[in-house]
């Protein structure tokens, strides 16, 4: 019985094409990433077998969406970088627990959610609970014009999002930027459906209220 030649080095060879440094890019664009669900049973099987090439491909495919989600939650690129690496290492270690019949997205984002929540919990000033009372309903003048301007100033929107409580931020990001259904968001955040719905609703109202309050001070013209 002869000892097997270790495959580890041969397995690293495909990465010689992947590991190089193009320039860092900053992208200003809408929802990134066509999402090919890992529905091809072939790829899911290769992932479970811990095929390094399959894992590298998946890391590449989900990088933008995952990074965007993490950045929305923690704001700082340095923290998002760390969480990004942490999430993937954890996913690679737990890949045998991934059920190929279910969505890879929700599984991956659930891991990212846990890692991000751990970080936020340790930050002073970030509360992870749902705020007790929903936002006050602000009776505003018809602000259709202001609303139209809002969608133009999407950079301001991003800044406003940062001011929301973490749970609202997350719910809005998953719902609108990732386009996830309520059931998927519930899986990712380990929260009941009704809670998720209420977070989206209150988050949106809170955002609107914050923006309306800000513009009452500013001169719109």
């Amino acid at each position, binding site marked *: 019985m002869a000892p097997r030649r270790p495959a580890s080095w041969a397995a690293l060879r495909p990465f010689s094409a992947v590991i190089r440094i193009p320039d860092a890019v900053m992208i200003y664009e809408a929802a990134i990433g066509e999402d090919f669900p890992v529905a091809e049973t072939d790829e899911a099987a290769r992932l479970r077998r811990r095929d390094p090439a399959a894992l590298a491909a998946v*890391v590449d495919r989900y990088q933008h969406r995952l990074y965007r989600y993490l950045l929305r939650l923690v704001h700082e*690129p340095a923290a998002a*970088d760390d969480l990004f690496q942490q999430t993937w290492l954890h996913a690679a270690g737990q890949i045998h627990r991934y059920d190929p019949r279910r969505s890879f997205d929700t599984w991956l984002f659930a891991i990212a959610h846990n890692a991000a929540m751990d970080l936020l919990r340790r930050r002073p000033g970030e509360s992870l609970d749902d705020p007790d009372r929903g936002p006050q309903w602000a009776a505003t003048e018809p602000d259709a014009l202001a*609303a139209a301007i809002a969608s133009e100033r999407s950079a301001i929107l991003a800044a406003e999002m940062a001011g929301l409580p973490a749970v609202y931020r997350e719910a809005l990001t998953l719902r609108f930027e990732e386009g996830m259904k309520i059931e998927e968001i519930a899986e990712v955040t380990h929260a009941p459906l009704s809670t998720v719905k209420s977070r989206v609703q209150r988050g949106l109202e809170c955002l609107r209220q914050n923006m309306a309050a800000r513009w009452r001070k500013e001169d719109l013209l």
Partner: protein
Amino acid sequence: MTPHETTRPLLALSAAGLLDADGERRVREHIRECPECAAALAGLAALAAGLSAMPSRAPSAALLARTQARVAAQLAARRDRISGTVLAVAGCGCGWVVSLAMWGAWDALGGNPALLIWLEFSAVLAGLTAAVVVRRRRRIERSLR
């Protein structure tokens, strides 16, 4: 509660596309009469549209490379551990068979207590080597931290 108050929470849900047909109908009926809620709904809908189109920063290519390298290293380490375990067990088995054969041969040729002494000595030597190597490794790791 007035219809105004009951439909108010539904407005945000409608803007987020989370209402069923019944809820949508109620909202539409209400905003026909109430300009305030109509404006609010328009605002919320614009917000929702804006949220789907926010700019975002891409991860740097260096981050991607680093992450892929770490994942690959983790996989390689795991495979290394497994192959090491298998080879260790195989080595143990083969070594055992060879030792038994040698013992049998030695026994058939007359026997000699020196073999027993050698076995004891080798076990002690193994323990000493292990202690030295582990100490050295721990020192290296401590200097790396």
